[in-house]
């Protein structure tokens, strides 16, 4: 069971994540968007969306530092585990709260604004549930585990982080996760489930962050595509799984 949960599941999820993105990019460039609902409602979106997204950016950065940087490195810098923890909590809690509150506003908006709710697919709802659970469990781990220290102290940088790195080094140390508190286990499992869903949901928009905009010239000139059928409005059917709007009902 330990091997299944902490070795097989992560590898399967990561494989789906990578292959899924390649597949989706090749077959559904047209659907590669997050289908903005700003046209329907913008008052709540203006508060919720930046709150959630900037919060998430902070959360992701915190995870990169906490999971990727080994404890010995920060120790070598003269940063004691305790001092590191204080810094991590100081940065992590505001970011996490922003993401959670933002997400709550966005989900509230999605549920209560008629047109936005109508534009929400089952796919979206499942994704929001998993995403919400992952964020909530993460907050729980931080607040209950690290801040209030329910059930004793747990240093994830000697457990979860080592396991996480070991996956990418192809020497998975499943035992470390089996010993971790339940909150961390659930958080990790759901996060991998989210990774597996990722390429098939609107989350793909994360990978179209327009960094190139900063360096490209303002105006783009392009030549007509001379290949037959290209550039004349004919497009091969591309959505792999999504039925066109007209046939969905």
């Amino acid at each position: 069971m330990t091997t299944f949960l902490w070795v097989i599941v992560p590898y399967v999820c990561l494989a789906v994540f990578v292959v899924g993105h390649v597949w989706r990019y090749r077959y559904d460039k047209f659907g590669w968007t997050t289908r903005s609902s700003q046209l329907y409602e913008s008052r709540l979106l203006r508060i919720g969306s930046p709150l959630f997204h900037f919060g998430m950016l902070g959360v992701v950065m915190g995870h990169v530092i906490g999971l990727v940087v080994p404890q010995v490195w920060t120790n070598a810098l003269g940063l004691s585990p305790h001092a590191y923890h204080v810094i991590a909590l100081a940065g992590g809690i505001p970011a996490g709260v922003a993401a959670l509150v933002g997400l709550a506003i966005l989900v509230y908006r999605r549920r209560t604004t008629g047109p936005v709710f109508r534009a929400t697919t089952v796919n979206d709802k499942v994704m929001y549930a998993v995403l919400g659970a992952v964020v909530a469990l993460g907050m729980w781990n931080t607040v209950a585990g690290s801040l209030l220290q329910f059930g004793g102290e747990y240093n994830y940088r000697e457990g979860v982080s080592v396991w996480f790195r070991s996956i990418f080094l192809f020497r998975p140390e499943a035992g470390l996760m089996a010993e971790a508190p339940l909150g961390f286990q659930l958080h990790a499992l759901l996060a991998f489930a989210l990774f597996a869903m990722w390429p098939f949901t609107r989350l793909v928009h994360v990978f179209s962050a327009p960094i190139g905009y900063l360096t490209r010239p303002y105006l783009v000139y392009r030549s007509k595509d001379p290949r037959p059928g290209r550039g004349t409005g004919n497009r091969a059917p591309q959505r792999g799984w999504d039925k066109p709007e007209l046939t969905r009902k």
Partner: protein
Amino acid sequence: MRVMAQMAMVMNLDKCIGCHTCSVTCKQAWTNRAGTEYVWFNNVETRPGLGYPRGYEDQDEWMGGWVLRNGRLRLRAGGRLKKLALIFSNPKMPSIQDYYEPWTYDYETLLNAPAQKTFPVARPHSLISGKPINVSWSANWDDDLGGSREHAVKDPMLKGIEDKVRMEFEKTFMFYLPRICEHCLNPSCAASCPSGAIYKREEDGIVLVDQDRCRGWRMCITGCPYKKVYFNHKTGKAEKCTFCYPRIEVGIPTVCSETCVGRLRYIGLVLYDADKVLEAATVEDDHDLYEAQLGVFLDPEDPEVRREAEAAGIPADWVEAARRSPVKKLILDHRVALPLHPEYRTMPMVWYIPPLSPVVDVVKDTGHDAEDVDNLFGAIETLRIPVEYLANLFTAGDVAPVDRVLRKLAAMRSYMRDINLGRDPRDEIPAAVGMEGEQMYEMFRLLALAKYSERYVIPPAHAEQAHALEELATECSVSAYGGGQQDVFGEGSGAAPTPVAVENFRVLQQTQSADSLEELPGDNPLRGRVNLLTWDGRGMPDGLFPSDQEAAR
């Protein structure tokens, strides 16, 4: 000098009767889909009026286009860093209410209603929320000055002259303004796109959205000061007027032009110097922008321009088409067409001949001769309000160019009346506006009589060249073995056949520009190939209908 070709349009506003045929046919062709119910690539607004979306010209509110800051051209809504910082929620995007909430009617009630005393009513239902709505705004709610006291007074273009404009219905002036995407030389929508999905085509300057690259960030909608990029709320992608490029590529005009009842649209090429665009868009004074924009165009009669055009890879027939271009004639030769809102500094490529009718109407109503040149000149002089209003639309508020154009139109009216009535033409009339009789007659011909082939001078795209180049590598060897026959390697091998759509387009083009079907040249391969899709109701082509004898049997 870097010569580029641009497909451009001129609309003669005096001829627009506000029938919305262009809007409807455009919608049927391009935006009759879920997600684009509220989208009108072509719309016709009554001016003075709010336009569509409501009050889109108020750039303090919507932040579209470019501004000059410290001598440099910048996007009004902010540069690249600001755009990325605001990417999670675009603060300056019109909501669906600013366009209008599209609706349909509950027709089912009409069919399913039981027998009853009163007639059943089909209530309007929103296409956005699906709920019953009270329709209170639309794309042309203030059509024909409807509710002008409430709406037209808020027209952003009345700023500065609002106290002088009388909004009493019988005393005001009015004209129609059909609008499509301007296909600008310096498009701020393209500059605003974080994904780089909006591009300008090198060959003909048409601005398009690459649907596969668009990621739905919505910055283009803010960037376009004309609000002519729309958000498809079903696909989450931006969509805009395509200048009907599949039609233009085979040499026929856009749907809006083709179906225009008043025949007020002209399509043709202009050549311009791409190196000068930025410089012209950066001139200090808004009032100089019209002249600066004229300075960007190149004269295809100039041998050096033609040499450079050839060097830039513009085909000879395109340069020839640029020489015959009605757009070039109206913009550069006669100088009666003006750009819409040059102050946005996007260098729009759909130009307008301002309407003389507000002036003519006033003169006529006072009982004076509305075709007498002195009366008209006097009226242009005294009727400052329509002239100032037109200047706000077409020359960033500079009255002088509008004045000149209106005088030319007035002079033409007067000059041509003499000719039509068989009197001696008075050469002092064209001279008063700096023209010669011959030129004035030419202008009259183009504005009043020009036929299909003169209004639309559209050289087909050179897709065949690309194909010919491919043939060098692939088809020569085939012809070396099989004498160039098709299908040597089985069915479908060899050169691709002409797609049906293209063939139908060509037939349409031929029949539209011929006076009768019999006029098609005898060796024309399309002769006798009229089908139901291409038949326009004229004549009875062979083989389309059963003969009387066959029908009798």
